[in-house]
């Protein structure tokens, strides 16, 4: 039987323990009044000692707000689009007929209908802002929320703290970073990336287990030998890449040695009916894997619905090749999302995990209200909708309203930074925490003055 000793989670390079760090962060909060926070605590929706998990579903391409969760049935035909609104489990709240299953769960889901950003309308900027809360500039890359979580909370036992499935976002045309790694925090806090499609019949995590001819005795001898060699050269201590390599090996061993982590990736342990319910698609099976990972101690799971916007059906519905048209929504893309998302909420709810697991889902921008001559809609960062559910989120809430054609927020505009602040706040992070930037320059978790969306709590 293969067995390895459990390894300790990765420590900070500067010798700071997590407790020291959180303590330092909390001092900054003294004397600050956060009325919204107090109110949220008073209602009992936020507990002080939360261990909240988060699943981020990135709807790569940017769903059209008008065809999904912010419909304008009274707008002219060329704006309202081909789909009808349907009623949901929340009286008075309607969403698109594209999501019949989701409609039954809207009492658990909150909508923010007035998300907007003002950067260039390319995918990459939206990816950056929605995953890190900030637009990158001056060569500074900000960390993904999940990487911030890894940094502030460390791992729970052997489980990696942040897992990205199935693959990172690749080319979406802008040639910019997508905000999907640890940025200035350093690659030690990068997510563990699956890099495989869990819906394929022969799926297995690449290189998760040693070949059978490497016994536990040999494994331990190999590591002992390696430690002997690694002591010899001192040049490596100052090198960030060398320290990273050490951390990578430690993490690799931790993942290998944990039966529970290995099982988290094994979807064959799920009944066929369950797998079918999520949809036998890359996204469906990834959402199922996200649930299994959360159940086994992973704190943050990022699921990319797509990895590119080219030559593939995605939310990027410009209308003509190599992009998708709105007509493709009901056949492939929307059911793909509806089945996976709804099953995830249902499962977490029935297992009592929705209470401490937040599910956030959004694209990088909305689409232009007027349908273009190719039958599609183009990039529109002026207004789009985010979905939040689970954890302290008050289901059925609708934050903000867009104007009569979904062009811009009518009231309560919300920035990507506020979404990040909401996640951090829900995770229990003090928003005044400073993270160590390049050369230890303190960089605030969110810019000063950016507040969570308190209406959601």
């Amino acid at each position, binding site marked *: 039987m293969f067995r390895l000793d459990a390894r300790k989670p990765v420590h900070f390079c500067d010798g700071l323990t997590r407790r020291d760090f959180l303590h330092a962060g909390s001092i900054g909060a003294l004397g600050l009044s956060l009325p919204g926070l107090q109110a949220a605590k008073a209602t009992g929706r936020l507990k002080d000692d939360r261990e909240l998990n988060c699943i981020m579903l990135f709807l790569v391409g940017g769903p059209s707000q008008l065809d999904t969760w912010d419909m304008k049935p009274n707008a002219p035909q060329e704006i309202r689009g081909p789909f009808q609104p349907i009623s949901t489990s929340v009286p008075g709240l309607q969403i698109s007929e594209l999501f019949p299953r989701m409609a039954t769960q809207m009492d658990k889901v909150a909508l923010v209908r007035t998300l907007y950003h*003002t*950067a*260039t*309308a390319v995918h990459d900027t939206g990816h950056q802002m929605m995953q890190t809360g900030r637009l990158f500039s*001056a*060569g*500074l890359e900000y960390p993904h929320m999940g990487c911030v979580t890894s940094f502030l909370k460390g791992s729970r036992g052997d489980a*990696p703290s942040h897992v990205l499935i199935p693959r990172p976002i690749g*080319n979406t045309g802008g*040639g910019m970073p997508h905000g999907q790694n640890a940025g200035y925090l350093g*690659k030690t806090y*990068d997510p*563990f*990336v699956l*890099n495989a499609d869990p819906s394929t019949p022969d799926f297995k995590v*690449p*290189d*998760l*287990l*040693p*070949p059978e*001819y*490497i016994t536990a005795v*040999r494994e331990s*001898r*190999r*590591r*002992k*030998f*390696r430690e*002997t*060699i*690694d002591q*010899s*050269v*001192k*040049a*490596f*201590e*100052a*090198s*960030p*890449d*060398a320290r*990273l*390599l*050490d951390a*990578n*090996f430690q*993490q*690799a*061993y931790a*993942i*290998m040695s944990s039966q529970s982590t290995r099982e988290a990736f094994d979807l064959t342990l799920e009944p066929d009916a369950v797998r079918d319910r999520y949809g036998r698609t890359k996204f469906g099976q990834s959402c199922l894997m996200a649930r299994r990972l959360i159940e086994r101690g992973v704190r943050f799971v990022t699921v990319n619905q797509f990895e590119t916007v080219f030559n593939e059906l995605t939310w990027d519905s410009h209308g003509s090749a190599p992009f998708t048209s709105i007509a493709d929504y009901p056949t492939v893309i929307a059911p793909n999302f509806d089945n996976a998302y709804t099953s995830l909420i249902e499962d977490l709810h029935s297992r009592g995990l929705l209470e401490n697991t937040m599910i956030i889902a959004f694209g990088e921008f909305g689409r232009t209200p007027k349908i273009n001559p190719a039958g599609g809609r183009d990039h529109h960062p002026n207004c789009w909708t985010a979905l939040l559910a689970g954890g302290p989120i008050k289901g059925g809430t609708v934050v903000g309203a867009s104007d009569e054609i979904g062009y811009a927020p009518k009231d309560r505009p919300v920035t990507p930074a506020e979404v990040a602040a909401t996640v951090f706040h829900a995770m229990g992070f003090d928003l005044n925490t400073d993270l160590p*930037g*390049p*050369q230890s*320059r303190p960089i605030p978790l969110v810019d000063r003055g950016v507040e969570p969306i308190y209406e959601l709590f």
Partner: protein
Amino acid sequence: MPVFARLLAWVVLIPPVAAWAGDTLRLVPGDLTLDGARSMHRLLAVETSDADTAVVTGDLTATAHFTSENPDVAIVGPDGTVTPVSDGTAMITARVGDRTAAAKVKVRNAAATPSFSFRNEVLPVLTRLGCNMGACHGSAAGKNGFRLTLRGYGPELDYDVLTRQALGRRVRPTAPAESLMLLKSTGALDHGGGARLDPASPEYRVLIGWIAEGCPAPSAADVAVERVEAVPARLRLTPGQSQQLLVRVHYADGRILDVTRWAKFESTDIGVAKVDEHGKVAVVGPGAGAISIWFSSHVDLVNLVVPSSAPAESSVFAASPRNNRIDDLNLARLESLGIPPSPPADDSSFLRRAYLGSTGTLPPAAEVARFANDASPGKREALIDRLLESSEYIDYWAYKWSDVLLVSSRKLAPTSMWSFYRFVRESVKANLPWDEFARQVITAKGSTLANGAANYYVLHRDPIDLTESTSVAFLGLSLTCARCHNHPMEKWTQDQYYGLANLFSRVRLKDGTGANGSVVAGDVVVAVAAEGDIVHPRRGIVMAPQPLDAEPLPLEARGDRRIAFADWLADTSNPYFDRAIVNRVWANFFGRGLIDPEDDLRATNPATDPALLEWLVDDFRAHKRDVKHLIRTIMASAAYQRSSEPLTANAQDQKFLSHYPIKRLPAEVLLDAIGRVTEVPTAFAGFPEGWRSLQLPDSRIESNFLDAFGRPAREAVCSCERSDEPSVSQALHLVNGNTLNEKLRDEKGVVARLVREGEEDQMVIETLFASALARLPTSDEAGQLLPALAEATHGLDGDAATAARRQAIEDLYWAILTSKEFLFDH
């Protein structure tokens, strides 16, 4: 008042100046000419270094007391701003404590109030206020029906929008203050962007003045901006200090104006310094950085040095070895920062480093002892010469240039891909001068099978792609932003972009046909047409073909425009071409370029050591752009031969080469090295046994290992395609994956051979260390490893002992081949 009390009061009143008495106080920019009633200019009172008066070491403007000797000519405000009164000359004096500095101010045309220029005054104000930024009216769709061009790149369009659209309500020359553009921007009327303009500000005066004059239009006669200058240009400061910057615009008519209020500032390294929107620099930490300045599509840089708080003695730098000019410049740079260099690397480290850096291979085990025992003084130079003549050198650099040129079967038929690769390889083999190499690519014509270089035009089929890919490959410049509008933070304009693109507008491709009219697989004929131009999409006109910052060709000129481009590449007035290749080669040896990223040579991304880069470029040109000479010079330098072991005082340095920067081996080098040490080369489908990954002509040859370790896809010209960073997946692959594990237990592999040949444990360890690490085990290591190997067979004999011994040796090999010392170039 008694004398001592007066003295005391005087002492108490002295402002707390951080300067040493005796430092030179100066006014920058110095003597001024103010031309016209509106031509105010600020003076800064600064201290300069005794060693170099061009280097500013402190800003005393806030504590300085300014006076004008002749207030009838010019007056000076408490912040040093000089305003003209009447024609004449006035001395302006600044006093700080007992030190003074003066500047002569000449006033001309003091009564003249030239009309406001839309191009040179109104647009910069709109840009400064943010009206035309991407998030507001500068977005492609505008905002609320009002669209300006991004940061004013289209003056004619903006003029039309402001004066003619919206029923002309945006400007009202008969009642300027009621112009919509003023009512909105001041917040008097509801404005989505809020109140951005203060009616008491100079910006407001420019806008209302221009409207009151009847909104003079931009015209071709507008005086052109010649350059923009930031002062002080060089700063040497300490953490906590701050320094105000001034931005001056030089017009073609000789006038110089202070446009600090309307310039944009950005720090290139926020770990060294921050800069606010008013141009005030605040130093954060030690190192070297720069502040980039943008005004009206012109840029400039301010260089900043922040020495270490505990600088090393100058004797340290004097005693450090110098092999060539690189070392003089590098040590001067280190000394200016106070960072001491590490001692030279030992022979075995140098041997391994030199092999990896120039050929991507490990030194053969036999070479290790030979080199260590070679007592000749010039053995390192001799080794470099030998490596540069090896066939592995050709493979390695052909691979590298194939990365840059995107040699791949993704868009090329296999025959064409081979033809392209052969061209690259033959060029390296012949050590073709770099300008000649570029010329052969740029001017390639004819059959792509006969002339491999012509495949460049099959990969990049239109003038847009050619412009952008060629710029990155040969100039290290990304021009993509300028395709749709002037580059927002760089000097490149859309006009320049389409001038450059027009050099490529006459390239035509024809599918090749064989002798009897059949299409030859993969053969395409590249030809040049006699006519054809690319149209500037915004202006709807054709730009004269024009290399960057060079003279345009006449539009009607016949002949291959690409030849003019190739001529310009090789012209020494071209500041990019040689810097780009020198920086690429430098990055190969040190892990990062003097400019980083290695193919990002924009004006606002300064080199870590500008003087060194300049010298390398001069030397490269002086040697007819001989790449091998450049490589030899770099490898011969003491900087390259320095130990990778940091000292306490230089451990923080990642940029200035105080110690050799260690880096993970590139994917291909690593896979080849594993194949070599295990004596089981990796098999590639369709290639003979023993073919190394660095000999692959094509990035599309399947290899999970190469992909996992960051091989570039060769889809876009960008050094960012390659990743040399470690990851958990790589660690898992080394631990569990089949690449390393299968090679170690291969019957044809090194472990099986050593066991079969009955080598003693001592010999096994020495073979392993020499082949993988280019050194012998230390007695400490041998003392730990030998007993561990012996223990594996304890209590066993016969076949069981042999099998157990073999496994133990496999495990030792595994440990070495996953150790940092093996995985890194150090």
